[in-house]
């Protein structure tokens, strides 16, 4: 069963025997099945790969009057600053003029910081501000927004960076490079 006869014709059957040996029509299908499944796995992988997803982002309506701006409590605010080469910085509340609460972080550690802040503050006061500087990449911004989705941060905003913050980032990056 399921095997091909390859023994070849035996001709020494004696005189008068002219009938060729009956060849079996059954072929071993195992390699064919192997090939079939190999191709199936290939197609399964290619189909799932080319399925891009969409990440929704709602922009706030540009407020003409400053009194319409969303008010944030300083105690619940966490500002995440994105710099060049995947550098991440953050501070809580208002930035100290001397930059004492300005801390450096990475994309791996920022999640814990967000979680800690989320658990230590009132849900209604918690607000994350994301400020990318001009050196940060699109990927950094998406990663930061993704972090909001991962940690279910309901209130967050993408805000332009201020000059003071940008200078602080550049100074810190320069400092870490020289060391």
């Amino acid at each position, binding site marked *: 069963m399921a095997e091909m006869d390859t023994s070849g014709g035996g001709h020494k059957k004696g005189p008068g025997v002219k009938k060729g040996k009956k060849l079996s029509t059954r072929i071993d299908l195992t390699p*064919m099945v192997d090939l079939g499944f190999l191709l199936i796995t290939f197609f399964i992988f290619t189909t799932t790969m080319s399925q891009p997803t969409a990440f929704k982002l709602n922009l706030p309506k540009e407020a003409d009057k400053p009194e319409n701006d969303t008010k944030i409590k300083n105690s619940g605010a966490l500002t995440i600053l994105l710099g060049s080469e995947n550098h991440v910085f953050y501070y809580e509340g208002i930035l100290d003029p001397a930059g004492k609460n300005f801390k450096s972080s990475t994309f791996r550690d920022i999640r814990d910081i967000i979680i800690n802040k989320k658990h230590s503050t009132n849900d209604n006061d918690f607000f994350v501000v994301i400020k990318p500087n001009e050196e940060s990449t699109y990927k950094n911004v998406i990663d930061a927004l993704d972090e909001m989705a991962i940690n279910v941060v309901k209130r967050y905003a993408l805000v332009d960076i201020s000059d003071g913050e940008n200078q602080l980032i550049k100074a810190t990056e320069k400092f870490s490079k020289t060391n």
Partner: protein
Amino acid sequence: MSRPKLPRKSTSIDMTAMCDVAFLLLSFFILTTKFKPSEAITVNSPSSVASKVAPDKDIVLITIDKNGKVFLSLDDQEKLKFIATTLNTTKNLNLDVNKFAKSKFFGTSFSQLSSFLEIPEESRKGNLLPGIPCKDSATNELIDWMKIVNDSYQGQRVNLLLKGDNLSKYPSFKNVIYAFKKNDFLKFQMVTNPESVPLGSDLWKLNQSKSGIKED
């Protein structure tokens, strides 16, 4: 007492049925696979935990390549024809409406648009084109583009998609958002590659509790 002789069974199995199943599945997957169309603009999109599949109908797609160049593409031929005629009347560009409608994407300033349409389809490559100028708010032509797109859809549902490259810098993204805001496009979606939700995170817990409710 002698034991009853058991007939020796062959170890080889009939593979025909298995082969049938394998090829049935194979043909199914071949037919359902959609290969990525060769893209004129190469973009490596970042990954996110978003699980919603990107829409592929009624889309207005803004692409940002790795150098921060911005391109616009629409899939609706009728809308493209409308846009071409509007551009011809408002900006006197003398565009070929049919050629405009057939073009898959746009990546030049308004003044060079007619010469852009003269380039044969095959040689319109993102890296050779200047992109829609939107470096600063004064020369942001994307605002005009989005305004015309908005007019052409006239309140119809439109899926505004943004597809950016990993390496593109934030200012180009900011300028695109600025153009969206100026035209009251406040909801848009960003095309990303899927990524699994990290175990133990809040979103993971939320998804777990959601699926638990569904099962009950």
